[in-house]
């Protein structure tokens, strides 16, 4: 339990700014180095303290992309459930999106989540660009092929286009070293995520009324994840990772 809390806390600590991370690491090292809980009451106190440290690392220090990392997992789970569940008996409830598109979209959400969790304060140019490719392909393909019969279908299609267009804009901004362009791309993705949240929220109700609890669960997870993702994409202001100077082997040999 203690080891698990510490591991989670160290992971969450990545989202804190450098000086905060150092202060927390120093404080924890000092306490752990000098104080060992012995009695049952002390062990209880220590467990409570570790939970507070985890909450501090996870939720303090403003909005970062770490939330996108966490929410991406929830959204991907919802997306996977919807992809793997048999279609509804009501043909109006079938989006007619090919399973491979659903799989690519799920992979895209997971890769974006992994990248955001691994670097929550700074966008890494090449990694973000490469890892957003499945998301772009999946969301644009889903928007282009989904059958639009009900109002939430139309919202979802527009939302997916916003995500599919926002990610390349963010990538262009990153590769060109233009933070405002990159942030506009993230903003477009965030608005798209809000649209997905709205659409999936309506579908939760429709599937629940249709007695399709598994699909309703998939939409609920997708909606919750999309809302958390929108929060991170709209309000985090990640910096751009510095560009490492590239030196040709010949120039390096010449010193």
């Amino acid at each position, binding site marked *: 339990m203690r080891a698990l809390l510490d591991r989670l806390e160290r992971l969450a600590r990545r989202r804190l700014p450098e000086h905060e991370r150092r202060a927390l690491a*120093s404080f924890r090292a*000092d306490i752990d180095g000098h*104080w060992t809980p012995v009695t049952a009451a002390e062990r209880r106190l220590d467990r409570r303290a570790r939970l507070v440290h985890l909450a*501090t690392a996870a939720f*303090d220090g403003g909005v970062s992309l770490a939330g996108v990392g966490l929410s991406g997992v929830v959204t991907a789970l919802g997306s996977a459930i919807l992809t793997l569940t048999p279609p509804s008996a009501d043909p109006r409830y079938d989006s007619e999106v090919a399973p491979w598109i659903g799989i690519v979209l799920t992979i895209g959400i997971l890769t974006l989540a992994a990248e955001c969790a691994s670097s929550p304060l700074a966008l890494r140019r090449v990694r973000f660009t490469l890892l957003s490719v499945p998301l772009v392909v999946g969301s644009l393909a889903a928007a282009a092929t989904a059958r639009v019969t009900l109002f939430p279908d139309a919202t979802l299609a527009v939302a997916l286009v916003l995500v599919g267009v926002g990610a390349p804009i963010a990538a262009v901004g990153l590769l060109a070293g233009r933070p405002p362009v990159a942030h506009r791309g993230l903003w477009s993705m965030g608005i798209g995520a809000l649209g997905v949240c709205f659409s999936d929220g309506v579908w939760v109700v429709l599937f629940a009324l249709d007695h399709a609890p598994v699909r309703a669960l998939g939409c609920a997870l997708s909606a919750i994840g999309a809302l958390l993702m929108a929060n991170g994409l709209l309000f985090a202001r990640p910096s751009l990772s510095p560009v490492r100077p590239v030196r040709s082997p010949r120039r390096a040999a010449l010193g």
Partner: protein
Amino acid sequence: MRRRHGTGLTRNEQKILAVALRLAHGSVAHLYGYEVFRQLVEWEGGEPMNHGTLYRGLRSLVGRELLARRDDEADGPAPRVYYELTADGRAAARQATIQLAALDDPPAWIDLGLARVLREEG
């Protein structure tokens, strides 16, 4: 945690300031997290403030500029971070000590004599 009227500090933040003031009176001007925790464990006995809450309190007091933070310049994976009462922090710590002493059930480690002197000083 509910913020107290007047000072806008939580009870735990008041306690941290009172500890810092008491230690400063004992000529310990530069505090570090473990030292405050050790004192709280020693003074409060059974149910001291946990070190997670203590860290949040220290951080909040630095944010309010009642404590100044200084990083140890020594190299190493986790150099120690020191805290010192600022001028505003000293005033807030005096008030916190007086308020804690005036409680129906004041913490046992509050120096009531010091609190009385501080109250008379105004």
